[in-house]
Structures are given as C-alpha cells and as structure tokens.
C-alpha cells in the first residue's frame, strides 16, 4: 500500500496546530524540535502550509556530497541519514523551497520525513488541509 502526502492550501486557516504537533513530535529531553512544516501568510489572513515536496529530482539530494539524503522507498519521503550527514548545510542552501532546515537546538539538519509513514500534522489538522491518502492504481 502506497500513500501520498497531500496539501490543500485553500483550506489552511493558519491555526498552526500542524507546526505545534510537529515540534512536539520531535521533542527530546524536554526541548521541542524544530517544526518541519510552516504555515505562512501570503496575504492578510491568508495562509499556506509550506512543507517539503519530497521532489522527484530533489535539489537537496543533488546538493548533498555525502549521500546523506536518500529516498525511503516505503514512505516515499527523502530521509536524512544522520550517520552520514556532516551538517555542511548544502541542502539548506540548495532547496528552492526552504524546506531543509537547521535545527540549532539539536545541532542537526532536519526535514520532513512524513513521520516515517504516520504524519502527525495530518492527524492534527482541524481543516483537513493536510491529508495522507492511499494511491489508487
């Protein structure tokens, strides 16, 4: 069974519950992690959730010189291999959407990994602007 992560931007109200859920999902030792999803205003009171597109020909994968960004065949996401990542921030600089991020709190490069196939933002979005749908053939 394969899933696709879907964003329906028209439904976003900018409530930022997704951002909160994400930060808490990645909390460690009592500190919140950096959220991988960003509801941002493009006009007054009009919001769009910006999150990693898991691009087919991802700039982050291209930029990484150490093969630390790789497609996870099961979830479809591009994951960070923390045993290889040296935090040079090439991916952060290269991603045209700004979705590879530096978590200064935990000194790591972070990006959305679809919560390994169980995205919390989807669960918490009250407007169902974020969905995780099965791909029907």
């Amino acid at each position, binding site marked *: 069974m394969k899933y696709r992560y879907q964003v329906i931007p028209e439904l976003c109200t900018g409530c930022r519950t997704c951002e909160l859920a994400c930060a808490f999902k990645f909390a460690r030792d009592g500190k919140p992690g950096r959220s991988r999803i960003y509801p941002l205003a493009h006009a007054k009171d009009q919001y769009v959730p910006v999150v990693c597109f898991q691009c087919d020909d991802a700039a982050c994968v291209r930029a990484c*010189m150490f093969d630390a960004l790789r497609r996870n065949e099961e979830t479809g996401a591009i994951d960070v291999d923390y045993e290889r990542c040296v935090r040079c921030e090439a991916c952060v600089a290269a991603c045209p959407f700004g979705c590879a991020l530096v978590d200064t709190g935990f000194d790591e490069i972070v990006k959305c990994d679809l919560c390994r196939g169980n995205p919390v933002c989807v669960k918490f979005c009250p407007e169902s602007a974020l969905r995780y749908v099965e791909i029907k053939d």
Partner: protein
Amino acid sequence: MVKLQINGKTVEAREGEMLLAVIKRQGIEVPTQCHHEAIEPTGNCRLCMVEITKKNWDGWKKSVTSCLYPVEEGLIVETHNDKLFEIRKTILDLQLARSPHSDYVRKMALDYGLEKSSYPVEPDGDDCIMCYACTRICEVLGKSAISPTQRGHQKVIAGPFGEAPPDCIGCLSCAHICPTDHIKWNDKGQTRTIWDKSFELIACSKCGKKTITREFADYLIEKRELPANYFEICDDCKRQETAEKIGSLVVRAREATI
C-alpha cells in the same frame, strides 16, 4: 552470505562487509573515534580492535581493526576481553597526555577508569587526535584541500606547505566532522575565516541573512548542476516566497471559478 561468530553468537553478514558494521548491527558497542559512515575507514585510532581466530588456527589469535577487516566464513570474533580493554585503555591514556583539555577524550578515558594520564601531559595540549576525518571528508566532497603534513609527532593537518589551502571552499564539513571540535572557524560580518583563508558569505538578497560561502555555492552549482539563483536567498525567505507562489495560485484558481 557469510556465517561467523561474534562473542559466541552465530551471525550472518554480506560478503565484503567490514566486521564493524556486523558488530554494530548486533547492538554491540565497540569504541570508535575515526569511524564515520560518510568516509572510508582508515584504522587510525585502533579502538575498534577485536580479536579474531578460526577453528583451524589452533588457538592462535590476531587483533585487527574491525572497521577495516572484511568478514570471512567461519571467523570467530571477540569484541571485549582483558587484552582489548588494555589496548583501548592505553590508547586513551596516551591521548589524554596529548589532549588533556579535550572533553571528548576525557569522557572516553573516564569510561576506562582514567581520570588523568599515566604519562607527562603536554601543558597546552593538542586537541587533534589525528583521526583524519577532516581530510577524508574533504576528499569525498572532491576538494582534498587539507591533508596530513609532516611526520610522526610533528604531524599536523594543514593546507599545502602549511599555508591557506587554495582548494578550500569554506563548507565547514571538516569542522563539523571533527570529533574534538579542534578545527576553528570564524563568521564575522560578511566574512568567514577557516584554515587562515577568508571567504565571502552570501547574504540573502531579501533579508541579508548569511547563508553559505560564495565558493561553496559556486562549487555546488558547477559540480552538482544546480541553478545559481537557488543560492541567492536564505531558507526563511525561500519558504515565504513559496507561500506567496502557492498563495497566488490559490487566488488565481479561486478567481477562475468565480
């Protein structure tokens, strides 16, 4: 697939795999310093040494660095025993003498019961543990800007002839991978300095936030075939731009349906 024994347990491994990977997969913790997944192993620190033997060796044992020893059918491996403990302890003891101020070395030495070195300590200390992680990572990214220079106790990681390395692009991979944080760099204003070389930090064309060095960006643009304009804006501003682009698509779609 190859069958071997680790600490009495029979395990399977792929041909060509190094012992260390197999050991780690079993959840066994063997100390390492110079090992990192992004670089080829060199066996500099000697901490990952294990004792191996085979049935037909008649009890004769050999100590090898597991990071570099390829698995073999019928290998019998011991990862912890008195001899190996002594080796690891002595290595850390020697490192404590050279790098008495390094928290990294002190912490590992404490695990082996060493609060201070048995040998006379270098008062200033030298935090470089000669793991070669920095030179190896620079090699992987294709620059080989720094390398080990001179010999023996005088050995030091530096650019050619001890001068600012012409090939360095200021990516900080070496500084980040260094286990003892020995490699220092300085970001001040629009300039980054590392290895006595100065680099221009790209300032976001929208907000002025500093991202990576111009040389690093140029290298990625050329070697990894990425569009140059990706690097002119910082990630915060790129997210905002993305929001605006998607937003304008939403607005246009709404107007179209009306």
